[in-house]
């Protein structure tokens, strides 16, 4: 292990803190120094909580000294995407309309991490209201990819992915509506899991598209992902869509082989749209899994080509309803000197929402408006049924489905900002998963010729995160390549 604890994984930190080999305070100090050294370049954090992080670390050390239980994430420094409600600091969704907003409560996932002994380092950058695939839609700052500072970190959890890749936190929380955990994890070479819809509570996650949103971790390795899922998962009375199902121990399911597992390769994911370089990396990963005893079968997801259209109807419709609450009355930005309430609403929203958020509100309002509802929204919900059925049918033949996370590695800053549709199409392999509600994980599977990470996506049956993690772990232990770490500082 490196001498610097910022380079350790969460489970290594937990073990070292719990055994007394290192203090939680020393770990927190190491990460804070790392942020100080790197974040001017990476710009992952929108707010760093140095003082309270040290106090939380001291509290872990004090509990340990008294012989008390310190929890499964004792002293592990965590970063939070800025759409998780926290009593501490601000919760802004990187939008002007929530500038200065202080939440009166903590999100359930934040409470769970705190109870598990985690130390919070601060809030991370994102596309405004999680709408974007590059984090360039943040109203606060532009985050850069630690592997190449001229490239985007992906999005919308770009700050989370960049912070993990640059060792500026041990792991981070993100949210995934159409790929917003997995695509940035792929772009930055980390592990990112979108759990099954309902697996993790959404209470205190600022809503974007409520039938698609899920909370999940971005981590340095698969074991950390399993560890984080143990803490995050489970029924929450405050989120009635959270599933009342047993969670189990995800770390216990990890085994270094893939014996007896059937892996489905969807032919629709291996077309000309997939870059040759990417394809090669995915195929090598599949071969590695075959070497570990997995059986490979071809499967079909015939409605894949319709997913982007379905997604951008449903997510914008839901967003237009969810974002109606930001009206300048009870919290957030309020336009000055409005003569009446109607003008107050109009000017507040127009001043507060950025261009992509306004575009999506308008699109969502249009597809829900009288005369168009059946043609767009109702149609999209019906095709959503077909997409979901594709997956359930495919899982009759296999335990997991494997493919790429994104068609290309991270693109350059500014490359796709002028064409919204082109940006939307970069989500092609991730959004079907949200529409179907199933879990999926992205993990690194090598570097492309451009020196940027490639992401392998592993999709699972509903509530079967355990098998995804097992396959991911088997690959990680046997992938036969050293990803290395990006040289940032």
């Amino acid at each position, binding site marked *: 292990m490196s001498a610097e604890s910022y380079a350790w994984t969460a489970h290594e930190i937990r073990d070292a803190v719990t055994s007394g080999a290192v203090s939680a305070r020393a770990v927190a100090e190491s990460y804070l120094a790392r942020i100080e050294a790197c974040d001017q370049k990476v710009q992952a954090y929108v707010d760093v909580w140095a003082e309270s992080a040290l106090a939380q670390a001291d509290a872990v050390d004090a509990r340990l000294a008294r012989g008390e239980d310190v929890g499964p994430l004792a002293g592990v420094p965590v970063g939070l995407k800025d759409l998780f409600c926290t009593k501490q600091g601000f919760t802004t969704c990187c939008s002007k309309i929530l500038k200065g*907003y*202080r939440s*009166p409560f903590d999100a359930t996932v934040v409470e769970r991490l705190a109870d598990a002994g985690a130390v919070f380092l601060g809030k991370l950058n994102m596309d405004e209201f999680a709408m974007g695939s590059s984090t360039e839609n943040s109203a606060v700052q532009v985050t850069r990819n630690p592997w190449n500072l001229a490239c985007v970190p992906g999005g919308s959890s770009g700050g989370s992915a960049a912070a993990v890749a640059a060792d500026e936190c041990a792991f981070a929380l993100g949210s995934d509506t159409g790929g917003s955990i997995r695509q940035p994890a792929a772009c930055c070479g980390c592990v990112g899991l979108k759990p099954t*819809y*309902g697996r993790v509570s959404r209470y205190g996650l600022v809503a974007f598209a409520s*039938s698609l949103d899920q909370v999940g971790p971005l981590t340095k390795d698969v074991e950390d992902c399993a560890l984080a899922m143990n803490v995050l998962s489970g029924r929450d*009375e405050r989120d*009635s*869509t959270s*599933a009342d199902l047993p969670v189990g121990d995800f770390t216990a399911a990890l085994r270094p082989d893939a014996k007896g597992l059937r892996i489905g390769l969807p032919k629709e994911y291996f077309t000309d749209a997939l870059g040759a370089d990417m394809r090669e990396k995915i195929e090598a990963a599949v071969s590695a899994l075959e070497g570990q005893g997995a059986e490979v079968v071809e499967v079909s997801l015939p*409605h894949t080509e*319709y997913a982007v*259209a*379905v997604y*951008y*109807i449903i997510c914008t419709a839901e967003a237009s309803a969810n974002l109606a609450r930001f*009206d300048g*009355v*009870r*919290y*957030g*930005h*309020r336009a000055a000197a*409005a003569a*009446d*309430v*109607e*003008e107050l609403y*109009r*000017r507040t*929203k*127009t001043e507060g*929402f950025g261009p992509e958020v*306004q*575009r999506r*509100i*308008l*699109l969502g*309002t*249009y597809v829900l*408006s009288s005369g*168009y509802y059946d*043609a*767009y929204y109702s*149609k*999209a*919900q*019906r*095709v*959503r*049924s*077909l997409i*979901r059925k594709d997956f359930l049918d495919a899982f009759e033949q296999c335990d997991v489905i494997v493919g790429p996370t994104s068609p290309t590695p991270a693109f350059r800053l500014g490359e796709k900002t002028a064409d*919204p*549709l082109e940006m*939307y199409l970069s989500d092609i392999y991730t959004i079907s998963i*949200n529409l*179907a*509600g*199933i879990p999926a994980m992205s993990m690194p599977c090598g570097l492309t010729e451009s020196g940027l990470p490639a992401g392998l996506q592993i999709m699972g049956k509903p509530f079967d995160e355990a098998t995804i993690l097992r396959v991911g772990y088997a690959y990680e232990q046997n992938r036969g390549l050293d990803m290395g770490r990006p040289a940032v500082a």
Partner: protein
Amino acid sequence: MGKITKQDVEYVSGLAHLTLDEETKERLVGELSEILGYMEKLNELDTSNIEPTMHALEMTNVYREDKVQPSLDRETALMNAPDSDGEYFLVPKILDTE
């Protein structure tokens, strides 16, 4: 389904409480037409016998016990208010009462 017009953009922006300048309207006519045009792809599919999916999980009503629990106190509820008198949220006048 068809091409979106400037009137459509104005109508929808009214519903959404957004004020757009002329240049933005022109830009959105192009962008929304392109995006909605792409979505017409869905018409290739016959979905007349397919049920819509609202939620990926099959969920039934979730009930809980009807018991009183603490809620936010007034001070906390008002702490983010852009304008308040300590008891209520204040907004510009809604009704003209001459």
